[in-house]
């Protein structure tokens, strides 16, 4: 059991988590990073990062593999297992992963401090069969999957910049793009809306919400309903969902969060529980970027090191 006690356990191996690991190992702490999928986080879907200082045009994958190797070479341990639960037991927090079974030592770790860097994931529409249809017509990334819909009709759902950019991108690929938005006006930038209006194959479906996914084995249409409760079925092969993101914080039930689920903490990354820190996109803040994620990682690790004394 002794070998499973860590000074710092970081949950999540994206930019915030790996930066925290780098700072904590360099302060001679014993560090474990737990990651449920692959390292890298959200940025790995970005082909060219244009705003990371000093590395113009670096790809998300190259940057994050480099950060991962850096953390590992410095001595951070990294394990691929999803964290299911964290319990505050005073001096130690126990971290339970998917590998844990009652009565075994497997999948249970003890940490003097925990840094939560779990990031966020795409918000779902909340419709029946949505998960089953993901990869069968439902997509949350237009630039990843748009190419599959060459000359086919698609719908984009959402009203922010992501939805507008997705619709613009898809207008050049798909035969037809329905832009479905629950309001009459867009949250996103006006110049993007103007640009979309010049595209002949883009149709605005406003004041309408998606109510049903049509199709058994793959998406064949999207049923929407407008404010007057009139229904309409859009015949589409693909549905691109761009209705925002949600922080991956459900398992942290004892932590103070805002109404969006983001863990409340100031710039010092302290949560309401001693020895538990939060870094990156899952923290309450105004700007969620790679640089602010790594900034958080450095701050959270330094605060954890201070806490350890």
């Amino acid at each position, binding site marked *: 059991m002794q070998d499973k006690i860590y000074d710092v356990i970081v949950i999540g191996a994206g930019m915030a988590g790996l930066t925290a690991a780098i700072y904590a190992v360099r302060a001679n702490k014993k560090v474990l990073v737990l990651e449920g999928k692959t390292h890298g986080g959200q940025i790995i879907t970005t082909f060219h990062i244009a705003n990371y200082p000093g590395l113009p045009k670096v790809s998300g994958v190259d940057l994050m593999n480099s950060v991962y190797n850096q953390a590992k070479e410095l001595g951070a341990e990294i394990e691929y297992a999803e964290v299911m639960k964290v319990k505050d037991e005073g001096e130690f927090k126990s971290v339970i992963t998917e*590998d844990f079974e009652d009565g075994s030592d497997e999948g249970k770790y003890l940490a003097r401090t925990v840094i939560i860097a779990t990031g966020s994931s795409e918000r779902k529409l909340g419709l029946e069969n949505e998960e089953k249809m993901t990869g069968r017509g439902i997509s949350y990334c237009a630039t990843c999957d748009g190419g599959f819909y060459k000359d086919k009709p698609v719908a984009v759902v959402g009203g922010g910049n992501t939805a507008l950019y997705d619709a613009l991108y898809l207008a050049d690929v798909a035969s037809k793009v329905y832009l479905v938005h629950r309001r009459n006006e867009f949250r996103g930038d006006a110049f993007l809306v103007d640009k979309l209006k010049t595209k002949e194959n883009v149709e605005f479906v406003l004041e309408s919400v998606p109510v049903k996914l049509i199709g058994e084995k793959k998406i064949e249409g999207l049923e929407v309903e407008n404010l007057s409760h009139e229904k309409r079925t859009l015949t589409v092969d693909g549905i691109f969902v761009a209705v925002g993101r949600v922080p991956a914080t459900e398992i942290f039930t004892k932590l103070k969060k805002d109404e969006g689920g983001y863990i409340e903490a100031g710039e010092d990354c302290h949560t309401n529980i001693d020895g538990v820190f939060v870094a990156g996109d899952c923290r309450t803040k105004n700007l969620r970027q790679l640089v602010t994620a790594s900034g958080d990682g450095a701050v959270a690790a330094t605060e954890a090191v201070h806490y350890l004394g």
Partner: protein
Amino acid sequence: MIEGTSDNFENEVLKAEGLVLVDFNADWCGPCQMMKPVVEAFGEEHKDVKVVSVNIDDEEELSDSYEVSTIPCLVLFKDGKEVAREIGVISPKKLAKMLEK
């Protein structure tokens, strides 16, 4: 890892006995690049599973016929029949769990 093409897919996958894991991917897809070493390590560890990589840009017909519309997409075949499918980045453990299905 074997490069899957429309020419060899029938022999390498559909007519193959036992387990074949097909990794549909593309060069421009970041998550696919992250999965590549995971899939390669899986192949090293499970010598009884043949691993085939299909580039969806070069093999549009193949990815269409398997209704691949999100990548990375991993499809496990047993005796030529699809038995499990995973999309997006997944951990080595989740990949190994595909075998249990």
